[in-house]
């Protein structure tokens, strides 16, 4: 095929209606405290893994809520399960269970 020297960029926008929200729905049932997140970033600020890698649990969760799951599987493995995020969360989100359930959801849903 002739190379015209340009290509089509994939859509960078979040297409909420098309996205697969099964993991979000699964989490909403099994760890409803996650709905209380106000996006303050306390979790990410204290995160042990986040201080050495680009792991950002606050952003990962927000993306997940919009059905953006492509980075979820490789990213979630970076969590060392120390639980500091849960200690600092001002809304009392049970983040350890969130991580547990996320791993389970990835196993089930993929």
């Amino acid at each position: 095929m002739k190379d015209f020297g340009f290509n089509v960029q994939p859509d960078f926008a979040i297409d909420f209606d098309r996205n697969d929200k099964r993991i979000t729905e699964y989490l909403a049932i099994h760890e409803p405290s996650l709905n209380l997140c106000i996006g303050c970033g306390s979790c990410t600020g204290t995160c042990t893994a986040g201080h050495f890698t680009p792991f950002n649990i606050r952003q990962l969760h927000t993306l997940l809520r919009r059905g953006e799951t492509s980075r979820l599987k490789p990213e979630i493995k970076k969590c060392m399960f120390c639980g500091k995020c849960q200690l600092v969360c001002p809304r009392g989100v049970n983040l350890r269970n969130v991580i547990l359930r996320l791993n389970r959801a990835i196993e089930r849903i993929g």
Partner: protein
Amino acid sequence: MLNKQRILIIGAGIAGLATAGALAGNGFEVVVAEKENQTGGHTRKWDRLFPSRRPGEEVVGYLENNLNGVTDIKFGVTVTGVIRNEAGFLVQFSDNTSTTADALVVATGFQVFDAHIKEEYGYGIYENVITSADLEALFREGKRLTTSEGKHPSRVGLIHCVGSRDEKVGNLYCSKVCCATGVKQAIEIREQLPECEVFSFYMDLRMYDRHFEELYFEAQQQWGVNFIRGRLSECSENPDHTLLLKTEDTLTGRPLRMNVDMLVLLVGFIPAPGTREIAEMAGLQVGSDGFLNSLDEHFNDNATTVPGIFITGAVKGPTTVVNAIADARATAQQITSWLKTGH
């Protein structure tokens, strides 16, 4: 008591009513002028108030029952002239009547922002775009939220800061009440239509007062309301009259698009149409935002640069119902002191 001192209050909204009742209770003769044909202003039209969800009408009813004998309420009149003389004030009305007064209270309040001005949100263009005031009117009539196609919406978007914090429409200020109103209305939509998803688009949620944050918590925990941080950029209508929203989800740093069946615009406060005219007639200072300036925001917040003219409630800027009533009582106290001691 002979020759009772008389106070004229312009506006019979909650601030005017509360000032009238408190001054009458202090022994003054009170006259109220109101441009509408009923008291209570916007509060009477508001189905329920945040955060307690007490009916707006109940607050107005309480203030009416505590007028302490004020019976002289002129309905359907506007002020056409304010003349200051040695005896006090002579105020003329649109029905060619006039009254003398020892002190005046300007309690002309606010009006809601005209959402047509934010054209990119489609109010008045797309049938399924309504305002928070429209939603309250619908609730007050006991009706259920319905799309232009006569169906119950399965997804509703609530847009914060419409006409507020927006240099483009000339309003740099925060309207203070829309955040809590939006969260309250999100809960009420979920209560009325449990199958309907609700998404709130906000820049900041300013849940500053007592019990506001708890309302936000309740909306998330009990009602599953979704909050997306980002100001709506544009709204366009699909062929089936649903609406495509474009915003940035600022917490993920990516543009986001989403379709909703209905959109509710949380409209802010702007000064009431008659406020500027009265300010010009009486020589009062108008702030850069169009609301009236008091003499001193800390030490003399109800007096003006004109001795004997006082301002109270939302004429001074966006305020909650709770704060408007508190301000009215402070005004009554200040006027009482001024009439008795001259300061």
